[in-house]
């Protein structure tokens, strides 16, 4: 018989942690009821529930009680533990439940063991496609599911496949885009490392649908573990006859191969990626023609994101209707986000589409780690935007995020608190895009550089009110005229921060102040003569020797020479250095 386990955790962040007291009380009551041989009461470190008072989770039943008062303990022991009946008034039903589709096997299967995947109904999707569905029917199934590309733009997957299927070509290709480059995003790495076979199966289904016989997994070279596990998965698939010739006793043949991305962000763009797989320099080209017509080596090609393929194998296994029952009208299924930044629980969350941002950040992520006020969240990577706190009740879907001036992107979600300067953040993302611009088209190459110059001017305290108009004008040009999404999206962080945090820009330009103290050029250090004990520590530590004076007259900072490194502020033991 399985022992019942009661996990206890005080989830209120303010005040003393009462986990231990309630645990002792619970243990006592269990002993009083004579259940100590069947029940174990355990203090947990984290139950994934926050600010809901005392929480208890009963295993293996999985019942969760929240807001438990000491008086309720008796009830739980006599009703739930002794009679196996729930105490309905205490049952917790929060909206913060994750739904795992893409990550259904992550953390469960051994990624290097094909048998584990098969035991979890792996390769049933491709079997069903091969034996029960024609390629047209399988594409139809995807259409019913409403799956849209998870790389960011949200193009309907079935349409992409259908176009590639109908395109004329003696050979066709399927490519998996695993060139994940957004700062703070690592969902694809996790799926490739945790469940590589689900991606391979998705690619097999795609190849069957469009009639491809060769495919590539383009994975960035910075993911050595992912590459190793995918290669092992491919070897196993070949070894067991799931890849190669006459797959599962049919005439379907497919060869898959890993290609390494050599560290250029732009290679995540599909046409640049295709050029890179061909062995050429990774630069994008104008579309149309789209890869579904003219792709790899000029042949029709389907190129999808890792997460999309992992969804495909699920859909073919469980049916389109099951998948379509999750999510919103236009955005079906789930989305994996990499929650990072100033958040308590950084990690991966998979939530149904339509979940409000607030649920993701506060209920699942546990809020800001520092306890400071949350300011905004950045989604969509360098091409995305910043969403301020007042819009956190917006449901997550392709359309809603676009409306807010951000976009879904591959799924990076960076949380910012009061200590972050939004102008500085915008400068960081733009700097990233300028570094990663391939230089092929002028709007991106020159526009990005010029915008960065203007932003640097503002953060250096030399900004003018008309600079904001210049930024808007260049942004407009880049959006309209850039060749690929990198240049088109690069102004987004600036435009969205200008829209939602105009006050911050004004402070930088007019008041010459940075609220968060991130823009060092806007700061000023001064020695307060009254508090100064003349210890000379600042003088010794100043890297540019800009502090002069003597023990009689006191010390002064030469503002012209000062590089605002803040060293004097840090070393002073008497708080005699003022920072403003």
């Amino acid at each position, binding site marked *: 018989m*399985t*022992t019942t*386990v009661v*996990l206890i955790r005080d989830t209120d962040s303010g005040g003393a942690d009462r986990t231990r007291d309630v645990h002792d009380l619970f243990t006592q009551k269990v002993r009083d009821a004579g259940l100590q041989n069947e029940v*174990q009461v*355990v*203090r947990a*470190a*984290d*139950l*994934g529930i926050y600010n809901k008072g005392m929480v208890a*989770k009963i*295993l*293996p039943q999985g019942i*969760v009680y929240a807001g438990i008062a000491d008086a309720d303990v008796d009830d739980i022991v006599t009703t739930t533990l002794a009679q196996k009946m729930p105490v309905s008034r205490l049952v917790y039903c929060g909206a*913060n*439940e*994750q*739904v*795992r*589709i893409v*990550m259904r*096997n*992550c*953390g*469960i*299967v*051994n*990624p*290097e063991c*094909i048998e584990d995947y*098969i*035991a*979890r*109904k792996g390769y*049933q999707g491709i079997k069903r496609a091969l*034996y029960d569905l024609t390629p047209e029917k399988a594409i139809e199934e995807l259409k019913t599911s409403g799956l849209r590309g998870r790389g960011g733009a949200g193009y309907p997957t079935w349409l992409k496949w259908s176009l590639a299927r109908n395109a004329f070509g003696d050979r066709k290709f399927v490519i998996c885009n695993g060139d994940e480059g957004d700062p703070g995003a690592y969902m694809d790495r*996790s799926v490739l490392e*945790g*469940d590589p076979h689900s991606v391979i199966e998705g690619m097999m289904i795609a190849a069957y649908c469009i009639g491809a016989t060769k495919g590539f997994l383009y994975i960035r070279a910075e*993911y050595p*573990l*992912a590459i190793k596990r995918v290669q092992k998965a491919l070897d*196993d698939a070949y*070894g*067991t*006859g*799931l890849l190669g010739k006459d797959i*599962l*006793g049919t005439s379907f043949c497919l060869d898959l191969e890993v290609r390494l991305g050599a560290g250029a962000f732009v290679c995540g763009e599909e046409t640049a990626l295709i050029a890179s797989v061909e062995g050429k320099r990774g630069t994008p080209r104008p579309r149309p023609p789209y890869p579904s017509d003219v792709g790899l080596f000029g042949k029709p090609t389907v190129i999808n994101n890792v997460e999309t393929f992992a969804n495909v194998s*699920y859909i073919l296994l*469980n049916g389109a209707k099951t998948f379509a029952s999750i999510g919103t009208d236009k955005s079906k299924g*789930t989305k994996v986000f990499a929650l990072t930044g100033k958040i*308590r*629980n*950084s*990690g*991966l*969350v*998979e939530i149904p589409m339509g979940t409000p941002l607030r649920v993701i950040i506060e209920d699942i992520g546990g809020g800001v780690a520092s306890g400071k006020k949350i300011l905004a969240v950045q989604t969509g990577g360098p091409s995305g935007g910043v969403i301020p706190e007042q819009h956190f009740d917006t449901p997550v879907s392709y359309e809603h995020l676009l409306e807010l001036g951000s976009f879904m992107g591959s799924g990076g979600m960076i949380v910012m608190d009061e200590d972050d300067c939004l102008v500085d953040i915008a400068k960081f993302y733009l700097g990233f895009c300028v570094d990663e611009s391939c230089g092929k088209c002028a709007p991106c190459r020159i526009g990005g550089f010029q915008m960065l110059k203007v932003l640097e001017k503002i953060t250096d305290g030399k900004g003018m009110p008309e600079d904001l108009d210049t930024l808007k004008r260049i942004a407009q040009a880049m959006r309209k005229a850039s060749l690929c999404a990198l240049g088109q999206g690069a102004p987004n962080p600036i435009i969205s921060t200008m829209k939602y945090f105009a006050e911050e820009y004004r402070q930088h330009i007019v008041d010459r102040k940075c609220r968060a103290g991130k823009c060092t050029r806007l700061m000023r250090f001064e020695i307060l003569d009254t508090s100064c004990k003349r210890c000379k520590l600042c003088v010794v530590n100043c890297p540019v020797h800009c502090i002069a004076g003597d023990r009689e007259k006191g010390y002064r900072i030469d503002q012209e020479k000062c590089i605002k490194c803040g060293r004097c502020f840090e070393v002073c033991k008497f708080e005699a250095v003022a920072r403003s």
Partner: protein
Amino acid sequence: MEKITKDRLDEVLKNPPPENGRYIRVGMSSCGVAAGAAEVFALLRSEVEKRKLAVPVVPCGCSGGCHSEPLVEVCVDGLPSVTYGKVNAEIAMRIIEEHVRDKRLVQDYIVDAPMKRAVAL
């Protein structure tokens, strides 16, 4: 390697293999390894071997709780499966001695989150 045929896959659907009753799973994706999962994994393996415990120690991918890595999920006879977070060598030893040997869960390190796994098994 043994070939996987259609019949074999049909068989899995018809008679799903029982959920593995006994295991110790260690999250061994990049996030776990960075937090020290490799050492924990090696330690658990050697202890299980040394004590001749009938519990396989297996690697798995990241379950999403990167903030609590290294994560170790333990499922042994007579106890529901639970996951320990931020496991180090000391806690790993306690897991072996208290949880696996004495069937008594280790206090203060269990992590959990409301979650629904979509695949129907």
